[in-house]
């Protein structure tokens, strides 16, 4: 037993993901929160604590963004905290919600994630420039995309992976997203489309990348006694893990995310998972770029190092494959409002395990799923294991 109390997810909510939404950040947080509460059959008065996850203040252009969003997340006069670990935030926030309830301090916790990236113009990429080393990297004119391109190239070089193999991830995820009602970039594209798309920073091309988005997601967490009262279908948080590597990203080998493996091992140990590919029925690894899904499948120990492209080619990771990966459509297809994107993945695993994923439902009556997010300067891993 980890924690004093077992913790379940009893409701989830998700807004549309779009490039530009009219709603303010608060309004987005409200939409997702209200939907999650309705799904759980609960009122705001049933909520004892609130955890908010939202990435850099610079996206929304609101300093103290946690405080700004509090009322939209139903936190007025409640114990409330904002957590933030870059792109890892969306999965980390439910982890923080978990310890609120697992500690025995609260019976319920509303977990809300929000991002409104369209506020920052001409492009939110400008908000990213200050994440790099001010002394040694920024004077060179660092952009987000070429930093990822360096990692992607190293991964390809190490395992002799071809761009065609990586492009299959974008094709699969955008196609999966056709069945997602919130999706921003669902499409039926081919490997050739990806390979013919604009080269931004080789090997990164336009269709290798997820979009920038506005959106919010929410989850209602409850202790075992409360969960059993409000639903016949609780989904248990059976494993949590998180880990950070050095802030100097050049200190890492780049082709393999050790920090994701450490976070996964922590979560699997708690969940009693000894053979991840056998015991996990579906996974939602973080896929802001197509190669990252492969990178993270390996970090999550779902296959051997360098083996993820082969599994993708063989259809193992398709929605009806042996190990469905990103059945939601992922960030590449559904969209990438940073914190909300990670939480969208936790929502997806929740719906899949309850058999509520509609046209996206993976076959085989899944019982165990994992979601993972990744962030900061390519150094942070957060992992959650859910079971029905």
């Amino acid at each position, binding site marked *: 037993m980890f924690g004093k109390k077992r913790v379940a997810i009893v409701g989830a909510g998700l*807004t*549309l993901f*779009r*490039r*530009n*939404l*009219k*709603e303010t950040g608060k*309004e*987005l947080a409200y*939409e997702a929160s209200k939907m999650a509460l309705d799904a759980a059959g609960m009122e705001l008065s049933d909520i004892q604590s609130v955890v908010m996850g939202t990435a850099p203040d*610079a996206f929304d*252009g609101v*300093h103290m963004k946690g405080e700004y969003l509090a009322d939209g997340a139903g936190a007025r006069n409640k114990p409330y905290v904002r957590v933030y670990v870059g792109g890892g935030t969306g999965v980390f926030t439910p982890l923080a919600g978990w310890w609120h309830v697992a500690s025995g301090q609260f019976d319920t916790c509303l977990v809300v994630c929000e991002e409104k990236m*369209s506020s920052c*113009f*001409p*492009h939110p*990429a*400008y908000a990213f*420039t200050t994440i790099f080393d*001010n*002394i*040694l*990297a920024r*004077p*060179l004119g*660092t*952009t987000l*995309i*070429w930093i990822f*391109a*360096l*990692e992607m*190239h*190293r991964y390809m*070089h190490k395992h002799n992976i071809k761009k065609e193999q990586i492009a299959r991830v974008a094709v699969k995820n955008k196609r999966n997203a056709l069945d997602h009602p919130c999706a921003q970039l669902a499409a039926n594209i081919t490997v050739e489309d990806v390979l013919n798309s*604009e*080269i*931004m*920073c*080789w*090997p*990164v091309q336009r269709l290798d990348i997820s979009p920038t988005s506005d959106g919010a997601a929410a989850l209602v967490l409850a202790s075992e006694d409360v969960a059993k009262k409000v639903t016949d279908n609780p989904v248990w948080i059976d494993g949590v893990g998180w880990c950070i590597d*050095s802030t*100097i990203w*050049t*200190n890492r080998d*780049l082709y393999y995310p050790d920090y994701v493996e450490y976070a996964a091992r922590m979560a699997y140990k708690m969940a009693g998972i000894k053979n991840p590919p056998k015991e996990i029925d579906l996974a939602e690894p973080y896929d802001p770029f197509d190669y990252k899904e492969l990178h993270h499948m390996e970090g999550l120990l779902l296959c051997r190092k360098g083996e993820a492209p082969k599994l993708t080619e063989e259809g193992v990771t398709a929605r009806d494959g042996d190990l469905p990966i990103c059945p939601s459509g992922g960030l590449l297809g559904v969209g990438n409002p940073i914190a909300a994107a990670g939480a969208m993945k936790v929502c997806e695993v929740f719906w899949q395990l309850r058999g509520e994923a509609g046209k996206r439902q993976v076959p085989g009556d899944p019982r165990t799923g994992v979601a993972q997010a990744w962030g900061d300067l390519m150094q942070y891993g957060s992992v959650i294991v859910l079971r029905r």
Partner: protein
Amino acid sequence: MSLEKITDPRRMRHWLGHMETDYRYTLGIAGERFLNEIKENARIMGARCKRCGVIYVPPKMYCEECFEKLEEWIDLGTRGEVYTYTIAYVDMDGNRLAEPVIYALITFGDAYGGLIHKLGEVKPEEVWIGMPVEAVFKPPQERKGSITDIKYFKPAQ
């Protein structure tokens, strides 16, 4: 929620604001010494941990692994090796660059870490992972104690 698809955000009622703040980032204890060595002596230094033996480049003030203070500085020479690289065709706004720019992560022997920098005097199609490269410094009078005192790295002879 709003269901209309908005392609031009200027159509929404909005208020324009900006966060105008400028920053002065100090180079720090290790950073100032590192860049001063480049400025004064045109050499790339690493810092060695006397407890673990790890050599950090860029040098740090402390060892991440054991928390020992790093006091031993080592001249790593001016040659390294391309660990990975990218060819940038677009700028921040997605506009095509007049000439593509090659950025690489350059490692130095057994040292832990490396430097990101531009490659010069080489065509994109001639670069390879593992390629030996050499720092090209600006003339002494133009050096300011910045990482851009190194103009770029070029293929080593």
